């Protein structure tokens, strides 16, 4: 991993088309400005995790495990 120290107002270039500018630092947050061509997806890493989790969630969920989840013994044994 390339580790670079930068000051606010400076920038990094990745390839010919991606530019990341350090806009400012406040407390424990760094504000970045990212310029990239439209076809390059810029995602926060936690969004990527959710994309993967969603892909798994939208797929087939095995019948057996679904039943375990949905079976409701508490409801079936209680009269309201």
């Amino acid at each position: 991993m390339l580790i670079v120290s930068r000051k606010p107002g400076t920038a990094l270039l990745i390839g010919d088309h991606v530019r990341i500018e350090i806009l400012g630092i406040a407390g424990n947050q760094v504000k970045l400005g990212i310029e990239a061509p439209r076809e390059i997806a810029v995602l926060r890493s936690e969004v990527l995790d959710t994309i993967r989790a969603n892909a798994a969630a939208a797929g087939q969920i095995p019948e057996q495990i679904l039943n375990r989840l949905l079976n409701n013994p508490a409801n079936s044994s209680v009269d309201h």
Partner: protein
Amino acid sequence: MNELTTTHFGTIRFNDDDVLTFPAGVPGFWHATRFLLLPHPSNRSISYLQSADVPSLRFILVAAFSVVPEYELSIEPWDIKNLAPPEQVLTELESWFVISTPQPDRLTINMLAPVVISRKARRGVQAVRSDTRYSHAFPLDDAALELARRPVC
């Protein structure tokens, strides 16, 4: 009245008013912006989030409070903007976790990115958190399942 023949629930009918708009789509399915929240017939902690446009796209949701009563919701400003028109106060938000099976015998919930719904605004977002407080693949163990199965009175 609209009609959609879904992969998992057969043909369903719904009014335009039943549709929840997800203005920003759902991560990984950005094109899907219109959803229906279908309650499970016997378990009130479970709902299905069915795409109103893509017959095969559905998520299984569990009510956040039913499995993690102490869950603290945090919504980023851009998601708040998508949840309610400007000037409208956000009230009565519902939080749900998407259930997933990363392995055939394992259930997990995405606590990093709860599905947050405002029925009043008829809008929803999958609100990906910017902090690292909760996991995107938290094991849904038997204790949590037991909580979810409790009848809601």
